[in-house]
């Protein structure tokens, strides 16, 4: 088999056999439309499932999977077989576009729940829009996502320019900050929300004593923290995700920096306590996810999630779950409007945008004309003890910041 012709001959034979199979089988993946078989409706979840960002992307898929399995019976009663199509975009825009094309080509896919990264979501949504495939984003906060005013793009989370300013107002009004230090992780998300925070605190008359970027994926932040120590701020704001944020909080404490620490929803995760340890106490997070354990429904949901997947749900699991339920709600309404028949993608897209007062476990959802969630509230959490979920110390309606 080491010979040159050997490999070629092997390839040739394999190719011929598959060709034969295609010819006879009529294409292995062609759906065989039997008379009594249920019509298939697919919901796709797209997020990074491999690579360094899988830790954030996987809960989205698990949330989607849970939502789908819970509604399976209901759809069967309507005469449809509900399927999840989990996709891995590897947090790579190039792969994201390919996945988008793949979903477009699969006519059974009616809604996409994704992506994690705004940098992937933007080029992918340019593909979805070509065939009116509705997208409900569980995680993208960049302003450019909905500012392009595509009819298909909706998101249930708050925009950077709602969450950042909400954190900024909290820092000025409630924490009485006079000097703040802003750190971000140089990603679309982290810098986006940190910039909005900075804008708002400056407008509030607070002095910004430092604005520095770190590299996502690194573990030693002492260099930046030395700058923080020298600037002596009252509040440190970090735009980024929990792995780096927790390490920052931990290393800040080791350096005896007494400043208060605020992060965005990427920081609101059970792992913060595990990673930062004692240093987690006193960390504030802004998040659009409400405390699921405050309501009966939410508690039951968290328990189900824990039982099913063996881990406590973080924000992304809740967002994934809610976004999928919004998607399924839109499909159901579209089926009803279509007289019980399978709706077209355009119909689903139109219905989705009109969704009103949807009650999710993490957030209520009403989309405005651009697909932003009017009902998104920004909650401020404070880790007061080593326990997740942390108590809510303040509640701000994000809609107030929507232009």
């Amino acid at each position, binding site marked *: *088999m*080491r*010979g*040159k*012709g*050997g*490999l*070629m*001959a092997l*390839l*040739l*034979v*394999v*190719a*011929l056999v*598959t*060709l034969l*199979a*295609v*010819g006879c089988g*009529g*294409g*292995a*993946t*062609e759906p065989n439309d039997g008379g009594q078989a249920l019509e298939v409706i697919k919901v796709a979840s797209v997020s990074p*499932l*491999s690579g360094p960002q899988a830790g954030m992307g*996987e809960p989205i*898929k698990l949330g989607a*999977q849970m939502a789908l399995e819970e509604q399976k019976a209901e759809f069967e009663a309507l005469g449809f077989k509900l*399927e999840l*199509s*989990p*996709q*891995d975009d*590897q*947090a*790579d*825009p*190039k*792969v994201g576009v*390919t996945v988008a*094309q*793949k979903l*477009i*080509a699969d006519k059974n896919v009616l809604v996409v729940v994704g992506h994690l*990264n705004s*940098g992937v979501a*933007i*080029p992918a949504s*340019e593909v979805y829009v070509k065939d009116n495939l509705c997208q409900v984003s569980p995680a993208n906060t960049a302003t*450019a996502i909905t500012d*392009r005013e595509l009819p298909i793009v909706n998101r249930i989370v708050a925009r950077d320019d709602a969450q950042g300013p909400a954190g900024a107002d909290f820092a000025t009004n409630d924490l009485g900050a006079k000097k703040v230090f802003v750190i971000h992780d*140089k*990603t*679309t998300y*982290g*810098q*986006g929300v940190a910039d909005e925070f900075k804008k708002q605190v400056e407008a509030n008359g607070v002095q910004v004593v430092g604005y520095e970027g770190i590299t996502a994926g690194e573990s030693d932040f002492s260099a930046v923290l030395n700058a923080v120590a020298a600037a002596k701020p009252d509040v440190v704001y970090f735009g980024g995700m929990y792995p780096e944020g927790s390490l920052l909080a931990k290393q800040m404490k080791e350096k005896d920096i007494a400043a208060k620490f605020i992060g965005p929803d990427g920081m609101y995760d059970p792992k913060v306590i595990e990673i930062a340890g004692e240093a987690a106490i006193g960390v504030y997070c802004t998040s659009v996810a409400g405390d699921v354990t405050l309501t009966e429904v939410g508690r039951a949901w968290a328990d189900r999630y824990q039982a099913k*997947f063996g881990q406590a749900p973080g924000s992304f699991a809740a967002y994934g779950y809610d976004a999928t339920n919004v998607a399924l709600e839109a499909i159901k309404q579209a089926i009803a409007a279509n007289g019980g028949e399978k709706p077209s993608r355009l119909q689903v897209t139109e219905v989705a945008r009109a969704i009103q007062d949807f009650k999710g476990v993490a957030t209520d959802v009403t989309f405005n004309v651009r697909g932003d969630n009017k009902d998104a509230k920004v909650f401020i959490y404070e880790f007061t003890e080593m326990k997740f979920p942390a108590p809510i110390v303040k509640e701000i309606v994000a809609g107030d910041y929507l232009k």
Partner: protein
Amino acid sequence: MRKVVIPTQLTESKIPFFLACTLVITAGPVFVVFPQSPAAFFTFLVSLLVLYKMSIPVPLKLVGAVISLGIIMPSVGSENGYYMDVIIQVGIYVALAVGLNIVVGFAGLLDLGYVAFYAAGAYAYAIFATSQASNFIPAAWATFPVSGNWFWLFLLVGLVVGAITGVLLGFPVLRLRGDYLAIVTLGFGEIIRIVLNNLDKPINITNGPKGLTPIQPPALFGMDLSEPIHYYFIVLSIIILIIVVAKRLNASRIGRAWAAIREDELAARSMGINLLKMKLLAFASGASFAGVMGVVFAAKQTFIDPSSFSFMESIGILAMVILGGMGSVAGAVIGAVAVLVLQLQILKELSEYLGQLSAAGVLSIPSQLDPAKYERMIFGLILIAMCIFRPQGIIPAKRQLVRLRERVRDWRAKREGGEDVDPA
């Protein structure tokens, strides 16, 4: 000049040859009939490889290639945008692999920061084809974004920007050898990426991590060319051009100088080869291909940010060159096709299929074992296996000894006949 026929096992017996013909003739039509079938797509690609390897006259091969790539693929692509997109991505990487092959394969200079040139081309177009450029160019001079008609000019700009970046990198570092050169190119690639990621202040040039969007699609005679099929033909024409240029370069005096440098730098220098000039030329021509493709990539994606130009990307392109067979243009092409089709199609379809089996209750796969998560792991295994079983690459470079010896003989014969001929 006589044509040297290199015998392959395909021709040694009639049966494989007959099978090959059957495959080549039937794969296309089957793909047209079943445009959604992954297996048909796979056999279609294999049939192209078989066509290339078959011992039939070159014009026949060309006819086959034109039918496959010019008619069958576009007609399937209009039916199934996914395969079209895979093929366009493949095309972009084919160009990158052929370009990197000039540096690594022809001239033997290990470059781990090749993606920097690609980034340079992409940003060159993206900055001017979005409103970004108005941040630092007064509106009185020009308004941005420029229209899609400029795309064609920017292909040239990308070429020039790529070449200039290549020379800029080349000048200081070409004194370095082997792995030291590798780490410097790696550092250079990272520097470019980090700078692109940070040039949103003090003057906002690249918009930092937020990226640039929406990038104008190319336009021709007032018509926007934003459909996959348009990109398909743009990419296809550029690839053909690039492959021809690369092949011509390799067969020229320059190509032989590169080979000499690759085999033994010292001997090459003593033969009178200008090392600096030749190495710079390798860097510049490799980089210019990447620059051009960067422009196409930016237009196709409509959004770019620095995360598309990471070190892993450089490594990925290098993997294509080495797996395909270093120093061989056909190898680079096939390496790129193999790696990307594996990554973007075969592994994805496979995990999809397993996922469906699991959903249907045939297999029970716990969520920790979800096949979609392990595409990269399987890809890693395949990389190792390919290295072990075909260390010289899928299509290794043929030593051109035979041909050269013949040329020298021709030249001698002519010289004896009184003619004065340049051996080159």
